[in-house]
């Protein structure tokens, strides 16, 4: 007799380690890319804005699964001649893509910090760079937290797509269970509920961060 | 259906919001063709009273009849009855996505289910009655002045052939220079015999066309009578003070 699927729950749950590696890595890399991209798009020279626009357009307009295969089979091994494993490739691709989205979140946040803040900083004798790092960014980063929360929920669900490269995250393991037990409804429902729980749990954490750093009266305009 | 037939009867209306008693038993009648003005300081319950009549707000106690049909009876189809009660809001509340003409037509086509061409004709008549000329018919509310918006709103109520029109401070949200055009339309309608119940601070309007003023204070009708009497010769000290203040503020035309 085939084993029943719920005996594999611990096995599926262990996939959370990989899922959160993808999510954490993707968000962090996306942050590291998104913030400078947003600043380049707002304060940079025209040619830089054009280059960054193309980057954002490409990564926002192309499906994740196409990007994963393009980088895993094409860009890394063929074009660059480096062999990266599925997990590393997935984190990089999630990060590059999230960077495109996060840059838009930060750009909105930067735009909603009012012009008077910059003028006041310059009037105090700060350089443009000092004004950006000391005055504008601390406000914009706070304003962007809700957008970031949203990005977490998106990247969490998108991490499931990395099963296509065989990263042993939650969905890949769920599929193994389906294949070995011959049952599909239970395992897939379980996986679905797991993602819902992780979405809400993570959102809670982001809300706590938001409350902690929230400054009264500082909210994004038109966000 | 005589001239002095009672069309609206309001009996012992009470309304409480949380702990605050806004209306403490209000009773009055309006006869066909009459115009009655409700005046009183803010917080007296005037707007709540008006909304209790067409049940946009549900009174806690008391009854309302329109042409002998009890609106407060749960068995009454209130949507049917509301068609017969025009309501003009302080903030106009024109439908933002419809042109002036469409605003007036929509009640006719969707609620009264009149054919489009009939509805259009009626709407055009109503708009002309409130002096909204053809060049404005296809404008959206955002493209109209406050006075024009309120006149369109009056036309929207009027086109439904209501038994009575309730006006809830119709000129309070208007710039001072636009008040006149709205009051003129309301006076014309009153003279034509359109029955009206008007919450307003405009004593000029009251003196000109009202048959009676109901002065409300603290959730009750404190004093009532012919406009001249209530305004110039009130029985109560509060009434006197109120109208003196109003005259000072508005210059009492």
């Amino acid at each position, binding site marked *: 007799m085939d084993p029943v699927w719920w005996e594999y729950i611990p096995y599926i749950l262990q996939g959370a380690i990989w899922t959160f590696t993808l999510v954490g890595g993707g968000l962090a890399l996306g942050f590291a890319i998104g913030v400078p991209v947003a600043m380049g798009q707002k304060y940079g020279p025209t040619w830089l804005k054009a280059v960054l626009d193309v980057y954002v*357009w*490409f990564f*926002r*307009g*192309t*499906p*994740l*699964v*196409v*990007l994963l*295969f*393009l980088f895993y*089979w*094409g*860009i890394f091994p*063929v*074009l660059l001649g480096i062999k990266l494993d599925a997990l590393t490739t997935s984190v990089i691709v999630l990060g590059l893509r999230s960077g495109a989205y996060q840059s838009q979140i930060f750009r909105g946040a930067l735009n909603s910090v009012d012009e008077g803040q910059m003028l006041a900083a310059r009037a105090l004798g700060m350089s443009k760079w000092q004004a950006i790092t000391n005055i504008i960014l601390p406000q914009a980063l706070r304003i962007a937290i809700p957008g970031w929360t949203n990005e977490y929920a998106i990247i969490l*669900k*998108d991490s*499931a*797509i990395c099963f296509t490269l065989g990263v042993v995250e939650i*969905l890949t393991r769920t*599929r193994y269970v*389906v294949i070995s037990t011959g*049952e*599909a*409804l239970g395992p*897939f*429902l379980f*996986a*679905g509920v797991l*993602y*819902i729980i992780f979405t*809400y749990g993570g959102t809670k954490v982001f809300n706590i961060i938001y409350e902690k750093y929230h400054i009264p009266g500082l909210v994004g305009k038109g966000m | 259906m005589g001239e002095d037939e009672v069309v609206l009867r309001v009996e012992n209306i009470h309304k409480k919001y949380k702990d605050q008693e806004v209306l403490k038993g209000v009773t009055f009648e309006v006869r066909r063709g009459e115009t009655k003005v409700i005046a009183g300081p803010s917080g007296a319950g005037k707007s709540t009273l008006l909304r209790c009549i*067409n049940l*946009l707000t549900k009174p806690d106690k008391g009854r309302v009849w329109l042409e002998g049909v009890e609106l407060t009876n749960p068995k009454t189809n209130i*949507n*049917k009855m*509301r*068609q017969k*009660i*025009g*309501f003009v*809001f302080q*903030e*106009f509340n*024109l*439908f*933002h*996505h419809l042109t002036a003409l469409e605003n007036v037509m*929509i*009640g006719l086509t*969707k*609620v009264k289910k009149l054919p489009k061409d009939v509805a259009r004709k009626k709407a055009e008549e109503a708009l002309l009655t409130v002096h909204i000329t053809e060049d404005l018919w296809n404008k*959206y*509310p*955002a*493209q109209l002045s406050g006075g024009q918006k309120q006149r369109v709103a009056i036309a*929207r109520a009027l086109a*439904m052939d209501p038994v009575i029109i309730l006006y809830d401070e119709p000129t309070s949200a208007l710039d001072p220079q636009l008040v006149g055009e709205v009051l003129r339309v309301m006076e014309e309608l009153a003279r034509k015999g359109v029955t009206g119940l008007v919450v307003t601070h405009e004593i000029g309007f009251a003196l000109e066309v009202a048959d009676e003023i109901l002065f409300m204070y603290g959730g009750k009708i404190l004093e009532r009578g012919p406009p001249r009497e209530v305004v110039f010769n009130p029985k109560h000290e509060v009434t006197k003070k109120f109208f003196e203040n109003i005259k000072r503020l508005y210059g009492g035309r």
Partner: protein
Amino acid sequence: MGFWEEFIPLVLHGAVNTLWVLVISIPASVALAIALGSARVYGNAALKAVATAFVVTFRGFPLVVTLFLLFFGLADLGIYLTPYQTATLAFVLCGGSYMSEYVRGAIRSIDIGQSLAARALGMTKFQELIYIILPQAIRRALPGISNEIIYQIKYSSLAFVVGYEEIFAVSKTFISRYFMPLQVFMVDAALYLAMTTAAAYGLRALEYKLRIPGLEMSIR
């Protein structure tokens, strides 16, 4: 035959299949979103609860999981959907749920005066919703809905997981014949970029066409 001569007709065939799903799933998603969004604001307690549970579920499940559930999970119950049916249904459930959040937000953003004026004219709750609230709310929700439509175009590439022969599915099979992944997946990317960019312009034009002075589309 060479690589390009074989690949181009194949991938265009995949593109037609992609569009064939989207042509049904996008309008159906919008319709579902309007129904769900309306139910969550205007429905009675039971309807609100059902609609909310529905949205929480299909926004919370990754789309791939929904696809697997509909294709393999329902089969456990004796319900067999074709790949085409599975993909279309999954996109509608997921897209409709996401879009419904914009509809709901837009309905709630309409000022109360609109509702009061509708009721004062004698409209029923349903008439008020259909003739007064939704025409305004849908316009306000349109930018958000447009974003979700663009997402749906991209995520349609996931239909390959249930064996539907769309752009990505044919490409994936093709590289086992000609191992030219760079070219193949760049062509895919180009096709999706063309579709998403065209959709973005088309939807912007639609927003412009439907705009009404004073009814600014504020939620994005």
